[in-house]
């Protein structure tokens, strides 16, 4: 839902970042307003996942230039947990398995951390179970998964549902979903997508990172961005995704070659 007067939730300006000595992001610009759904597409190594992890505060990445403002404040100054509590959520491409840590306990602790930051009260075990049982419906998840260790032995689809369950509990303002469609069969893709659609409101925004049109058949984006060599090269409406599906990424490379930094960027693309 595009509303030009909606408040800006996330504003990325000229973002440059490295992992080790390797430059990955080379000037990303992106503005997300409340109510919007954005999709970022691009080849492997184009910097999509780096962008998503960096926004969540992953320690492996170093920002070398640029700014990220979340509701006007400097997001990069916050620790990962502070970003989460403030309402930034990253749905992981590969959710981590944590043996021995109960999923229910983990969800409760995380939910309470967010609630406290929102000025609410912590939920006790019983109140939380009521809440979680209600939110399970968003992703049609079996309550048995609450009793298991975090993601341990979950199938790919179950892990992704668990991610969206966390999104449902944490009620974020900016949700970044990193290849949420990978590893999902058609049914699971529909369930997860329906969950995301249910959670999209006029007050929050969603950034979908994906390779495939099929996710965008289920979740209709307001904007589609094409990323290559660490920058956003094109931005358009949902029709851009269809064009990518039809033409592949080669024409993006042509666009890249004609850009000012063609040589350096092409080298980086190969390396990345």
């Amino acid at each position, binding site marked *: 839902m595009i509303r030009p007067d909606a408040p800006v939730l996330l504003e990325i300006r000229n973002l440059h970042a490295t992992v080790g000595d390797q430059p990955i992001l080379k000037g990303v610009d992106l503005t997300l307003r409340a109510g919007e759904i954005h999709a970022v597409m691009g080849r492997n190594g184009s910097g999509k996942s780096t962008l998503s992890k960096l926004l969540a505060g992953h320690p492996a990445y170093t920002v070398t230039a640029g700014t990220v403002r979340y509701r006007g404040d400097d997001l990069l100054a916050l620790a990962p947990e502070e970003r989460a509590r403030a309402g930034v959520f990253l749905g992981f491409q590969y959710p981590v398995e944590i*043996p021995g840590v109960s999923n229910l306990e983990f969800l409760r602790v*995380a939910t309470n*951390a967010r609630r406290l930051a929102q000025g609410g009260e912590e939920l006790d075990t019983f109140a939380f179970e009521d809440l979680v049982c209600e939110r399970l419906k968003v992703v049609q998840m079996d309550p048995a998964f609450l009793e298991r260790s975090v993601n341990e032995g979950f199938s790919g689809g179950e892990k992704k549902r668990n991610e969206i369950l966390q999104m449902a509990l944490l009620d974020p303002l900016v949700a970044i979903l990193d290849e949420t469609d990978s590893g999902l069969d058609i049914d699971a893709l529909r369930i997860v997508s329906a969950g995301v659609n249910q959670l999209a409101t006029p007050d929050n925004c969603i950034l979908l990172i994906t390779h495939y049109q099929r996710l965008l058949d289920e979740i209709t984006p307001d904007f589609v961005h094409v990323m290559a060599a660490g920058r956003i090269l094109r931005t358009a409406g949902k029709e851009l995704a269809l064009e990518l599906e039809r033409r592949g990424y080669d024409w993006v490379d042509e666009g890249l070659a004609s850009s000012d930094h063609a040589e350096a960027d092409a080298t980086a693309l190969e390396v990345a």
Partner: protein
Amino acid sequence: MVSLAMSPVTAPGSASTAWLESVLKAFEPSLPAPGASLGGLPRRRSAARDELRRTGLPPTRQEAWRFTSLAPLIAVPPQVLPVPELLGPKPDHPPASGALRLYWDGDRDPLAGMDLPEGLSRLETGLQDSLLGTVLEVAGTTGSWLVRFNTALAGQVLALRVRGNVAVPLELVSDCGQGSGVRPLRLLLVMEEDASLDLLEVHRAAGTSLTSVLVEAQLAPRARLRYGVLAQGTESSCLLAHLAVSQAPASELDLTTAAGGWGLVRLEPAIIQVQGSAATRLRGLQVSRDRQIADLHSLVRFEGPNGQLDQLQKAVVDDAGRSVFHGAVQVPQAAQRTSASQLSRNLLLSDRARVDAIPQLEIVADDVRCTHGATVTRLQQEELFYLRSRGLGADQAARLLLDGFCDEILASLPKSASRWEPANALLRQALPR
């Protein structure tokens, strides 16, 4: 980080000899009453005292003690640990409802005035005399220093017989409190055919003390023992425990040890499947920080075919703490079709922490399936980031991961252990409060 370096010499020989002599003096057996017959215990005690005087403290040049400094031991005042006036349940750890708790101080009779549940009884003196020491002989561990030390000191044996299924979980609690000195405890447990028991041993100490434990458990055919040892100490306290179990065919032993916080803790489970065909499951967790030493030397021997072993030993080591695991598994020719697995998993939380993990599989039989492995890791950055990205602070995330690492072991303790909040007891500086 398996190390082959020699430990520094633990203490000057003269100081350790003097300490040992003082301990033996403090535990001088009283003369038997006129006409009283000398049972098995006094005879063994006298022999063990002579033997200890001859051998002294175990030197670090002995393989079994190579990594384990005895310095914390000889800092313990060589005296009998005073028995506190009042022994009552700690208000923060009332016994689980339906559990039988016995307080064990090596002086008073833990069974005095207790109503024992059906199936559990005191072992008759005659049987006690004839059975005492037999499990150790079967295990071949009579010469272990821990066995000798306890035998030289202990003037009493808690001897129990188990018949049929004992529905009430049994708790044996030794709390040395702030007391200083040495406390020897000895248990003889005889489980008859088809007997079944849940037993939790709890050891706590907050003073400069040494708890010496010697357990002999004999499992008849089809007997089932679920046995937990939860041991929480402090920097100045020491725990030495030798746990010998003989298993007849079709018996099941599920032994879980969890120890943390001790200046020095050494546990020696010694399990013998006397004719094979039994099931042994061992779970162990040890936590050491500051300059603490946690040491587990286990021995499992199969003396017949078709035996099973499933062993998982974990350690969490922080600061300049040290953890030693030595796991011997002996599969002689007679033990065909043995299935044994041993895994040691270690979590290092600091650069100065040290882990020595030494599997020792001696396999002679040719038709067996035996596996072993050891891992040493740090907290995983991706796991930490995942938790932090959900709003958990760095410390809270690390703590949750630690809890998860330990839970796999602690969940195997008998149910009544939850009253003692084992994760809190072992992972926090819980004592002194």
